[in-house]
């Protein structure tokens, strides 16, 4: 049985790695995948060249969680940090693996 879920992809300067992971955990996602990437955007500045490039963090969650995550990310970081995010519809087998713990 395939289940429709939403993937949230966040790309940010690496300074935000820890806060974003904390945000994801707080929203009850069952996991996430992190990739080291490079990028260019409207701001184009990284805080530390030692800190490494950008990070792309992907997490698969329910559509509602996705909206909540995106909302909080946007209000907390969009203004001051180099970060963008988008949602993609995905489908998975065994959807229960991805659903909010305790709900």
């Amino acid at each position, binding site marked *: 049985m395939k289940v429709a879920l939403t993937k949230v992809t966040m790309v940010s*300067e690496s300074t935000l790695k820890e806060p974003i992971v904390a945000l994801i955990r707080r929203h009850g996602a069952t996991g996430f995948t992190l990739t080291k990437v490079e990028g260019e955007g409207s701001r184009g*500045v990284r*805080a*530390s*060249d*030692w800190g*490494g490039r950008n990070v792309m963090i992907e997490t698969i969650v329910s559509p509602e969680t996705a909206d909540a995550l995106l909302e909080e990310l946007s209000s907390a970081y969009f203004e001051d940090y180099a970060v963008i995010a988008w949602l993609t519809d995905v489908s998975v087998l065994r959807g229960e693996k991805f659903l909010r713990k305790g709900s």
Partner: protein
Amino acid sequence: MDLLIQNLISPIVLAFLLGMIARWVKSDLEIPDALYQGLSIYLLFAIGLKGGVALSETALDVLVTPVLATIALGIFTPISAFWILKSLGRLNKIDAAATAAHYGSVSAVTFLAATEATRLAGFEAEGFLPALVAVLEVPGILIGLLLARTNRAGGIKAAVHEVLAGKSIFLLVGGMAIGALCGAEKIATVAPAFIAPFKGVLCLFLLELGMVAARRMGDFRKAGIRIALVGCLLPTFHGILGTAVGILIGMNPGGAAVLGAMAGSASYIAAPAAVRIALPQASPGIYLTLALGVTFPFNLTVGIPLFLSFAEYFQKLSQ
């Protein structure tokens, strides 16, 4: 003048220049991220080790005055930088404070380049200087952040943790502790990895730094000539001051010049990471460009020989 040329024609300075040229001719040369991080880890840990061994051989009472003098520099320089950046540089309060945090702290690579130039010019420098790097790195950042008097919850607290547990300080202090605990004899077993090849590794690091700095210099025009001039004034002022302090507390001219280079340098590892977290509204385009694109090359080429000449001159004067 001779000192200047002697300083410019060295593997370290030329590697930095080669990195800048790589950008200018649009070479596809690229130092992989993992390598760059590996080089940084190596350099910081090795500075620490070497400093630790020197500490284990230095009587504690010899250290007291230099450490106190370094702390005094670490408190004075961010404040003077803040004031100059706001008045002469016309930066707003947040950007001035963020940049002041960088000038209050210290650039480990400038320290290394100064040590090497000092040695090549035939001067001597005290063995405990790496310990002063660790001492100087922290206070400037904290004072810079305080100057911004931000109201963001947790901002400063997170930044303090970022500074103290950040890889830069952590490796420096950690290496120093290992060096001091083990002493010269035991460290000799790892010397062929950490002491002998050190300068060569530094060359590779400067190659990358040259590329980064060249990219930053591109942001120059945005920042403006006025602010770039401030980026040369600050290291001159703080560097001369630091050198004078060094001489006055009785250091060798070589050691005093290195202390001056440290005071005149602007951090671009520990400080940006901390500032980005505590003061996200400040513009990295300003503080990084100044620290890496203006002040670092200035010190590498003009500043260090200047501090050396001044140290020599001032010591004669004060004798």
